[in-house]
């Protein structure tokens, strides 16, 4: 029974489920650092899914789909930035507006371009290619876990490292964080905080667009209405959970993916679905409790040290 639950497909499943979350969360944590959390991620993922399929279908290439999805993400990110940074709108309102807009627009375009309602699948949608890393294909364990994934899965891992280096090892990263934490200081240093915020917002849009195209071209090869299925909000949770640190956020996204995979496998051995459904949420609460507790005791210890 344990073998049915804890096998290598569990890890595969975890990686697959986590990837859209990772891509979106990486974008979102940039805006979080820049001091304007974008809750419109959900909508941008949905738009990315749609335009990914659109590009792949009409240009006959998955790359075109990904680029189109990224472009749409860029535009939406730019719109978000204009509203939040220059027009000083409330970022939550703009985010919600993006989500509603995306839901409506994709339904409308699905009907007017493809003439269908609800779902669109076609053999003409070219999926993203799968990678086989020749070096590890001879090692059975690594072969199953790391091979035969769509390219975006590997790219997302590279993005995690790149984002980490960008944020913590380059001056640009420091500027970006300063734009969120202390924009006046950044201005004094002669760097425009406005520009840094724009960069964060646009990068977030592009990454969420990629997350969407991965969902509709890598994970699946179809588009259905609302296929983002709250992944934008789970990504948001991953950001908050990982305290906007790329590595920790990556871990949080993997955790969500893992519990999702675990839930499905527990059902196979007879655990009721109502129970497996709550596993991710219970796990989140428990993990959050442990994390916060550890922080609190650490803070307490630090303050005690000060008084000695």
């Amino acid at each position, binding site marked *: 029974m344990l073998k049915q639950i804890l096998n290598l497909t569990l890890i595969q*499943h975890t990686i697959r489920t986590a990837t859209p979350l990772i891509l979106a969360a990486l974008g979102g944590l940039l805006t979080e650092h820049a001091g304007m959390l974008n809750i419109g991620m959900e909508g941008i993922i949905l738009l990315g899914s749609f335009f990914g399929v659109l590009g792949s279908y009409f240009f006959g290439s998955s790359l075109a789909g990904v680029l189109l999805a990224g472009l749409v993400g860029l535009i939406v990110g730019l719109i978000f930035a204009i509203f939040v940074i220059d027009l000083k709108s409330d970022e939550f309102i703009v985010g919600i507006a993006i989500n509603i807009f995306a839901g409506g627009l994709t*339904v409308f375009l699905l009907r007017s371009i493809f003439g269908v*309602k609800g*779902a669109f699948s076609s053999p003409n949608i070219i999926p993203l290619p799968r990678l086989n890393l020749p070096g590890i294909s001879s090692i059975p364990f690594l072969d199953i876990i790391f091979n035969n994934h769509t390219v975006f899965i590997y790219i997302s891992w590279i993005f995690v490292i790149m984002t980490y280096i960008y944020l913590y090892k380059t001056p640009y990263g420091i500027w970006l964080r300063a734009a969120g934490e202390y924009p006046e200081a950044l201005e004094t240093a002669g760097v425009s905080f406005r520009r840094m915020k724009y960069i964060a917002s646009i990068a977030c849009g592009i990454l969420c667009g990629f997350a969407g195209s991965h969902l509709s071209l890598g*994970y699946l090869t179809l588009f259905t209405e609302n296929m983002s299925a709250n992944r934008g909000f789970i990504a948001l949770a991953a950001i908050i959970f990982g305290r906007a640190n790329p590595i920790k956020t990556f871990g949080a996204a993997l955790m969500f993916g893992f519990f*999702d*995979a675990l839930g499905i496998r527990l059902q196979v051995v007879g655990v009721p*679905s109502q129970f497996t459904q709550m596993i991710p949420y219970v796990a989140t609460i428990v993990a959050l409790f442990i994390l916060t507790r550890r922080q609190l005791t650490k803070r307490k210890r630090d303050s005690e040290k000060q008084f000695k």
Partner: protein
Amino acid sequence: MVYNLTKGKSKDLIKGGEFKMRKKVSLLLVLALILSMLVIGCGEAEAPADDEEDVAVDAGEDVAELSKVGLVVAGGLGDRSFYDSANEGVEKAKEDLGIEIKVYECRNDPSLYTDQLVQASEYAPIVAVVGHEFYDVVQEIAEEFPDVYYIYVDNEIEGIDNLITISYAENEGSFLAGALAAMLTEEDSIGMVGGKDMPVIRNFEVGYRAGAEYINPDIKIETIFAEDFEDPAKGKEGATALYSGGADIVFQVAGKTGEGVFEAAKEMGKYAIGVDTDQRYINPDVIVASMVKKVGQSIYDTIINIQNDEIEPGKVVYYGLEQGGVGMGYGTEDMKQFVTDEMKAKLDEIEEKILNGEIEVPAAK
């Protein structure tokens, strides 16, 4: 000058207690306004109810008045199964009977259920309601609009005269699907992906299980509930887990989530069975057959029965194998056929046995 004057005046007002007086008067005015609004509001609410009655009285006498149908669905059209089947039914009624139709989608937003149902009730004298989510709402609304006929599929509610519920024997149809899966499988292991763990889906499940075990008592059957009807990615993961666990045929009963099951079958070179409508056309290479639940047909029949005044008020209408409400669909001739004539003959034999009571199919609702 003017500025000074007003300034002086307002100061005087505050000093002289007259301001307090004015405040009281304005309070009274506001109260009166609110009261009058309430009165008007009540009056308005009653007025259309009267109109409804007038319409309905006419409707009882004249079939032509029953020439509008509203279709209310809990999700959205385009699921290529359940809701679309219902839509086909009213579309067919529009073509054959020349009635007007209007579709109200709630897009899974519970706050819209009541509103859309009321909208539909005000639009048409016949309202078809599709989705288990309406169980409570439809009973309330049916009592509020006693002269509108409600056709509510997938549930059994008795005792409300203008509410006709249609119940399908999913278990009987799924028995055939299970038997077919058991005949087709090479691994003696099959699976099912359900949308949500609820009575209707359970009814599919018990039938499917019983059917498979009828053919092969030792067969392994695993079921996963995605707990979502609209997330194909979840359906794909569920089916992938079943396929990698050894199953080679998965029956999907999960709406749009089921699209992901077909994707998984394609990717892993396994097979799937569709549901509600004949879904083979979606991918004829992996979808071997479909368990068809004729929601549309039953709505169509009921519309005709209402028009001809041939319904039994407050009763449940049953659609099983006997009434042709459920059955198997094998796609069109030009598609690659997986189900051989022998298998079809065997399924016909099983159907015969179910009809004459030799096989008793367990039920779960």
